[in-house]
């Protein structure tokens, strides 16, 4: 706890940089910025418990202002937490040690749309949907469609390595970025090379993808665009066996039929989620496949994919349930159809190769269901982001009657995560695929990276010797 003159000193120095209108330490603002979308801090507030708020909220308008703020943070050795939309589910933007909440949303300009190269350069605080509206005016799209586009920022897409609904064809946010401007922890402003696919030395820009504000602040990014597709075709299928459905997905991607979407719900998800949101009572594994672009090519790709599915015994449910899924694809996440308090829940998504995916899914399911039977835990999953070599399982645990006491609830929550992540790591998976690490998975980083972890720590120490950048996240420690 800082007492005496120092807080006022820091406040006045920060105010000097951003101006009085863009700094605050009001109680209500501090409370709102004390939590992102992570279940734990949200639960904490829900149970009437106090969270550690940030000490100052600053809203810089330029990279240069950010650089100056970081210099102040270094001189006082106080944490800086970059905040985009606060929609992260991992606690990445939670100010666990207080400090400066660096809300980057004022950096919200579209700087250039290059209609020939199909790229957009924008500031990192721009809201995802607003950026999409801007490129749509030119008949273009940024093909990163996370369910959180309405609330997340461009920087928030990149910092935790997010993935959108159509990533199977277009790639994750990290695959769409060409270059970035980053303010390093010591206040230096750097720009990564203009294009990524070169042989002029290591692609160090990838270091910032997944750094979640621990290695610097992303202030600008150039992203790849696509033309808005002429058609989008969706179709739903029902498999009586999850293994056959996974095989269908594997064949569709490995034969390079370029699906926009393959969304495969396990039987339990089909019975609960699909029924609740879309109203269909299907018994089996419900799959939606989508193709887009040129009408003739998309139709042909769809036809080939349908024939793969038919050979594996799928029932073709037609277009309507596929299109309904596309229309309502985000309703799965919003109130009142999404998850809500007082339930306890978590998305233990993981990614692995086709050879391991079934093993991982069943191991995690068995571990969570058997260990937390007494809590009547539900484990549901779907497979949604497919790569040429494997896929990810977006699995969720849900407990409808968790402990009322916040501290007990926290313990149970963390135990379930230990179980689920251990099952993923032991079966060839990663701690997750697209939500990032944040606070939630920080303790698993050393285990995930094994021998490589000390190298990452050395890099962190070299870039941020005082440890001011988002301390306690992504496996790194606190301020030194």
């Amino acid at each position, binding site marked *: 706890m800082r007492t005496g003159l120092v807080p006022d000193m820091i406040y006045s120095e920060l105010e000097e940089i951003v101006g009085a209108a863009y700094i605050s330490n009001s*109680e209500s603002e501090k*409370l709102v910025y004390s939590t992102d979308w992570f279940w734990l801090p949200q639960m904490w507030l829900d149970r*009437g418990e106090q969270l550690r708020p940030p000490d100052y909220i600053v809203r810089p308008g330029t990279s240069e202002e950010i650089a100056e703020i970081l210099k102040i943070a270094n001189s006082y050795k106080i944490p800086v937490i970059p905040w985009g939309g606060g929609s992260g589910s991992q606690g990445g933007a939670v100010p666990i040690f207080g400090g400066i909440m660096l809300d980057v949303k004022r950096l919200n300009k579209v700087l250039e749309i290059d209609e020939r190269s199909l790229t957009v350069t924008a500031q990192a605080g721009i809201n995802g949907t607003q950026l999409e509206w801007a490129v749509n005016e030119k008949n273009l799209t940024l093909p990163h469609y996370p369910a959180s586009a309405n609330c997340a920022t461009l920087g928030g897409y990149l910092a935790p390595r997010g993935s959108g609904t159509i990533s199977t064809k277009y790639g994750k946010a990290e695959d769409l970025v060409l270059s970035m401007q980053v303010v390093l922890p010591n206040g230096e402003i750097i720009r990564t090379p203009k294009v990524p696919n070169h042989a002029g030395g290591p692609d160090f820009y990838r270091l910032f993808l997944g750094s979640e504000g621990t290695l610097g602040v992303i202030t600008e990014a150039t992203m790849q665009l696509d033309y808005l597709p002429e058609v989008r075709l969706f179709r739903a299928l029902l498999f009586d066996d999850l293994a056959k459905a996974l095989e269908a997905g594997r064949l569709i991607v490995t034969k390079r039929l370029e699906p926009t979407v393959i969304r495969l719900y396990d039987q339990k998800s089909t019975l609960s989620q699909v029924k609740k949101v879309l109203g269909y009572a299907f018994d089996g594994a419900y799959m939606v496949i989508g193709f887009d672009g040129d009408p003739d090519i998309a139709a042909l790709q769809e036809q080939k994919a349908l024939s793969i599915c038919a050979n594996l015994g799928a029932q073709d449910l037609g277009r309507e349930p596929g299109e309904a899924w596309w229309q309502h694809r*985000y309703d799965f996440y919003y*109130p009142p159809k999404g998850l809500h308090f007082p339930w306890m829940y978590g998305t233990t998504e993981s990614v692995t190769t086709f050879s391991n995916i079934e093993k991982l899914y069943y191991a995690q399911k068995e571990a969570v269901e058997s260990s937390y039977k007494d809590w009547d835990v539900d484990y549901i999953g779907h497979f949604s982001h497919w790569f040429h070599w494997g896929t990810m399982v977006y699995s969720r645990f849900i407990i409808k009657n968790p402990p009322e006491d916040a501290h007990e609830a926290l313990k149970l929550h963390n135990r379930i995560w230990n179980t689920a992540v251990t099952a993923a790591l032991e079966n060839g998976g990663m701690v997750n695929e697209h939500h990032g690490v944040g606070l939630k998975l920080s303790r698993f980083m050393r285990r995930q990276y094994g021998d490589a972890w000390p190298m990452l720590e050395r890099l962190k120490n070299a870039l941020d010797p005082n440890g001011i950048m988002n301390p306690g996240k992504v496996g790194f420690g606190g301020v030194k």
Partner: protein
Amino acid sequence: MTYQEALETLEKCRYCLMCRHADPLSHVSFNEALTPHGIALTIYSEHKGLLSWNEDSLRTVFSETDAGVARSHCATDQPFSEAVSAVKSELLSQGKMPETVARLKERLEQTPSFFGDAEFKSALEQNDYALFISDEMQYLWPESVNAVNTLIKALTLSPAEITRGKSSGFLALSLGFMEQAKKQAKQLMTELEAVKAKELIVLSQTDLYTCRHVYAERLGLSFPEEVKVTSLLALLTQAYKNGKLSFKPSADTRPYAYIDPSQALRVKDFDSPRHLLGAILPGNQVELFWRKERTHPTGSGSTWFSNPELAEKLTRARLEDAQKQGAEVIYCEDSADLSQLNRYAADYGLELKGLYELLADHLG
């Protein structure tokens, strides 16, 4: 909606961020606390004992005008506007309000309008048509009154004026003064009944929304079902399309933009004004980025009273948008918006014109 019912909605908004992309307050303030999520979390946190009501937290809640944009973009149709009004009303009943609103309360208790107190006596003779010229038009943009009368004459109508120079009650409602809002609404409805009109002509989208929806749905009053509420712009568009009305093209070739009024999302008649403008000024219309379904308020509503700095930011954002799109002239028909835009339009080299005046001047 009761305070308790409001909390049920706010419980959902507290944990939802899904109208952020369209949210005007955070777009100009960049402040998380001023999003529907932030406002809901603030109210909810007070309810949970994590915050107390003070000037700062009250200001957060009262900065929200009427959340029309959030309401319109809500992913799951939550009545966020109604919930915020209910909370404001509860706070006012406990004497809790920011200083700016406290000053207004006193004023409201003394005069029936925020903007002026001249008395206009309506004859209240029986007529199939009634016309409502609000206090906003009367006091904030009076040059529209004559234009409106000219246009109505051109439609060969001679409606009975009701509650001229008074408020429909919307502004009071959006500040949480429910009783005042009801009083103003009842006065309008009483005069409407007195003239036995079958159709009420209103001059702004706010009044259209208020008469069509607010009275019944939010104030619990029974607006006479048999009375059709129509906007003058819709009547003019219809007459123009039917060939009953014509306009002379203007010689002005400067690029211009139409500013969708603050409550446009409540009614969603985006086409009528554009159609009429196109009749007079074909070919040189530019569109704002923040237009139609994603339009933002101009800062003219209750925010102007409860948080003037924020209102100014909203206004400037609209003007900046117009300037950026290359407009030299901007048009709007809403008097409150016109008067608000007028405060700063010159800073952006923009000429501001009332749409009714343009239409009246170019009648064929």
